């Protein structure tokens, strides 16, 4: 069984193989022996190379929130398609998105505007903090999906730039 999981922008491949008294897990060159597995609700416990570990977890679709020994981790399932680096221009190069949900307080650009890399395209406010979203590259504003005063979710495209390739 193979899993591709993303943690802090790094994608890891985890292989699990059933063994007679547990599991063998392989990540890159590292190999681990898993035994004494116990899973119940938000708790998963097991021994890994003999050491007992207690982990709390909760899942929100493809995102798993986990806590172990005082550290909190966010691990995302990576779909097979995503993990192959094929697309030439990554999605985020063509749009600006907010890392956090919040209120769209300013939208200083209009469709058709020519913008320079680093120019502010939108300002999103959440929890008393304003976050300026800047153009990832030079380009032309092709589409604006929200209006000032609207609530935006995390990772929703707010301003989209015209595709680089169409222009050429």
């Amino acid at each position, binding site marked *: 069984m193979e899993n591709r999981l993303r943690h802090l922008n790094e994608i890891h491949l985890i292989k699990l193989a059933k063994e007679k008294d547990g599991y063998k897990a392989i990540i890159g060159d590292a190999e681990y022996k898993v035994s004494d597995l116990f899973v119940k609700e938000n708790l998963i416990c097991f021994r890994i190379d003999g050491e007992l570990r207690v982990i709390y977890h909760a899942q929100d679709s493809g995102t798993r929130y*986990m806590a172990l020994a005082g550290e909190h981790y966010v691990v995302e399932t990576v779909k097979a398609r995503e993990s192959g680096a094929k697309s030439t221009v990554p999605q985020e190069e063509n749009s600006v998105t907010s890392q956090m949900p919040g209120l769209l307080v300013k939208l200083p650009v209009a469709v058709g505007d020519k913008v320079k890399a680093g120019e502010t395209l939108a300002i999103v406010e959440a929890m008393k903090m304003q976050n300026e979203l800047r153009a990832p590259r030079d380009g032309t504003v092709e589409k604006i999906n929200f209006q000032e005063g609207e609530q935006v979710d995390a990772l929703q495209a707010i301003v989209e730039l015209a595709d680089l390739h169409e222009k050429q």
Partner: protein
Amino acid sequence: MMFKKILIANRGEIAIRIARACRELGIRAVGVYSTVDENAHHLRYMDDTHWIGDSPPQASYLNISNVIDVAGRAGAQAIHPGYGFLAENSDFAKACEESGLVFIGPSSNALALVGDKVASRNTVQKVGVPIIPGMRTVGKDSSGFKKMAKKVGYPVIVKASMGGGGKGMRIVRTEKELEASIAAGQREAKSAFGDASVYLEKYIEKPRHIEFQVLRDHHGNVAHLFERECSIQRRHQKIIEETPSAALDDELRMNMGEAAKKVIEIAEYTNAGTVEFLLDENRNFYFLEVNARVQVEHPITEMVTGVDLVRQQIRIAAGDKINLSQASIKQRGHAIEARIYAEDPENNFLPCPGRILYLNEPSGPGIRVDSGIYQGWDVPPHYDPILSKLIVWAENRDVAIERMSNALKDYIVLGIKNNLGYLKRIMGTSKFTKGDYDTHFIDENEEELSIPKENIHVVLVAAALLAAEKKGVSVESGGTQVRRDTTPWQELGHWEICED
């Protein structure tokens, strides 16, 4: 006369903290909420609740006329503003006074005085409380700034007169940079506070932020409840506080405490107030400002002195005398507070609202959790990202650090990014454990504070095992654990209730 009903003009953990004090005093608590806070945790602690407006704070928790109006309709005699929102708003205090409501805090005049940094510096200097060398008035032309900078010596700092939270501040190291920094400070001050006034003072290189808690009643009785050290800050916001401070000895502590009382007296300030000082490397202290409210970090003072500060606030507002003499107030043991925020320390502390999918709060000897959240709640994006506060007490600093570290490990908040791991890492740094730190701690210890790599593989293996479990692949491992599809009652077989 003690109040029968108090309106709590706040939300989250502080609203609950105040409601608890009301309950213990036999006072009915009236809670308020905005649209998005309809199901907020603090409402479960109130005797009565009222909607005060739409979700944006300006429409609800900052809406003076709505708050006053609801207080009147609910039949409250007093309003406790908590911290943030309207807590230090002299217009609000005045509106309360004019509506015949008691504002649980200082008078609107005292609030206005301590809210103006230049005016309050000038006032405290008159009674011999040291202030950072610099301008006494708002600077006008650049030659005045230049002259003062030369007199106090570089580095200097340009600050907004109405400022706070680091906005409008500029550190200037050479005369060359001065003019541009003044202009930048004025622009930022204008946009943040609507007032471009800035002034200049000596920049303290490695300051420790040390504040004193003071109580003063309407009969002129005043007492301080010792210090809190709040030097661990990110973006000028405190995240860890402790008392006693490792930087003070008894003599310095006594001098600072007396200075704090002088500040409160000269300002004719009543109720609970905090006098903030900076302490430089040579252990000189300078008055910074007065925080005219109950502070986020008030619990650590409660833990070491045994004095309930919110109860004192209510009693003082009702006209009671402080029933504490300075000599009777002692610091016992050590307390630390950690602020739990919905924010991502791995991404510039960006706020992270969202749904809490799982929550487990720590408990045990010497552990206190002042929390405003519950499992299943959606943390809204409209307000401050504070979720809760974890406070520990122990007989000494070393044990308190260990206790905090372990309590943070037991504190689980899943579903939104948070700073629990980061706070735990602070406890483990050598600078913190030695008590050798200043307000630059977070910036200077970035590497030691980054997320450790050691357990990432364990977490990834756990995630893979959980995915396997979900797919229905048996992940049983050796038969020690029985998979139950039945309840224990079913397995017990036939049973009946005993008659006696």
